[in-house]
């Protein structure tokens, strides 16, 4: 008797679960599709900031960058994609200084591991969001990241004594502000 019961109960639970499955796909049929039509939706594309597309060296209005040619990025790059070529120049004081001559970056071999960006002590290089980098020849993927005629941004020398005297005063002002 129980096998007969199992036969029919199995049949009906089976039918019920099938109908449940059908209802799930029915709802999916009418849901709004999230497929984005790529070449036409370039204007409304939202790419997150942390997406790594192409390594760049940000230059400001005065054509200055922050790279001191310390070659930490070159040392950390796992496959030798970065080549930092430096030259020594004489400053006004007569001291010999090492500055960046050319910063060669090969987009073709980059693994986008972000190690160069993380380890750079002067925040000189960043990954941009420009993802349309396809070319027809591999040679065009080797890029020089520092612009023509650009130089290192001079760091502003802060007066240390004034800074320490001003610090406790600044802290007091802040406390009063928060109380209010």
């Amino acid at each position, binding site marked *: 008797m129980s096998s007969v019961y199992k036969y029919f109960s199995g*049949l009906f639970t089976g039918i019920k679960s*099938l109908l449940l*499955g*059908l209802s*799930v*796909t*029915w709802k*999916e*049929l009418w*849901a709004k*599709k*999230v*497929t984005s*039509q790529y070449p036409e939706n370039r204007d409304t594309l939202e790419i997150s900031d942390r997406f790594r597309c192409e390594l760049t060296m940000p230059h400001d209005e005065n054509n200055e960058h922050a790279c001191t040619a310390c070659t930490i990025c070159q040392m950390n790059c796992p496959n030798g994609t970065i080549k930092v070529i430096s030259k020594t120049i004489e400053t006004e004081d007569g001291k010999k200084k090492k500055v960046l001559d050319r910063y060669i970056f090969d987009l073709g071999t980059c693994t986008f591991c972000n190690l160069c960006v993380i380890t750079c002590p002067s925040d000189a290089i960043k990954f941009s969001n420009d993802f349309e980098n396809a070319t027809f020849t591999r040679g065009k993927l080797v890029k020089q990241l520092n612009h023509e005629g650009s130089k290192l941004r001079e760091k502003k020398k802060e007066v240390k004594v004034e800074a320490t005297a001003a610090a406790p005063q600044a802290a007091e002002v802040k406390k009063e502000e928060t109380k209010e």
Partner: protein
Amino acid sequence: MLLNYSEPLEISNLTKWLDTVLRANLPEFWVLLIEFVLIGVALLTAYAVIALILIYVERKVTAFFQARLGPNRVGKYGWIQSVADMVKILLKEIIHVKEVDKFLFYAAPFFMIVASMLTFGAIAFGKGLQALDFNIGIFYVTAVSSLGVIGVLLAGWSSNNKYSMIGAMRSGAQLISYELSAGLALLTIVVLSGTMQFSQLIENQRFCWNVFNGHISSIIAFVIYLISGHAETNRGPFDLPEAESELTAGYHTEYSGLQFGFFYLAEYLNMFIIASIATAVFLGGWMPIQIKGWDGFNQIMTYIPSYVWFAGKTGFLIFLSLWVRWSFPRLRIDQLLNLEWKYLLPINLVNLTLMVILVVTGLTLSDLLPSWFSIVP
């Protein structure tokens, strides 16, 4: 052209006019020859065009079920994609595998296509649009669709490939098992309707579709026929013989180019044929919805041409087929055969007995409410 005011859009007006024009001008032999050639060409064209439309509809509807958009680049909404696919399959290279049994290998796709075409000829697309109207219509259709099994088995056997062989054996077992259920489900309706001829079947459903006429029994028969139909055409959750990852492509692994195109085409058209036979037998074929006594309503319904009714009903069943395909997991071969022999067949036999009881004791809808549903005025 004869101006037929009551059914202006019917193609049967065109065919009758053509027939009278030909008969008035040519001897009988030439009239028949021209008509046969025209019908043959029309059927072949319909075969190909319906396959193209179905492939496009399947790709779009499948995509919508799967939260994506389907082809939408080639032509507006992607309709030319189907044409591009057809051109591709016509031009692809047929790879001549060396160690196959040549005669059987090249003959196998033809069995599938011929079986498919023979069934295709018996479908009633609209009023007066049926090429073969035998008085044993349903019997003919069941018999001829069985020829497809030979194609499958030949394809697997002659491929000289162990896995194609296994796929063919599985497919063959599946096909012959489910033919039983399909045939019995159709028999149930033959019992209800008293005739096997398609045109008579459809005519008998003028005021009440068969699926409502035999209430419990014919709804069960409908569901069983749809399930067996899908299983017969290797469709939906029953496509184990073609499940790519397990057997590469089953019995049609070694076929390429146009030969594969034949198998592909035959599969699509078989789905269409199952759906159209189901509409003819259960849902009233090309007969519009008519209510006894409401002549105005009936007039309006007949203005919508019969082939539109047919296409709508068949389209609904094909949509059902797609819906089922993308909702259910695939059945293993033992679950498949289990389903047939332990569930569908016993239920079918009981259902047949139930239908006989219903008809004999006069409990069908057309007997219970003759003023609404009976054909006899």
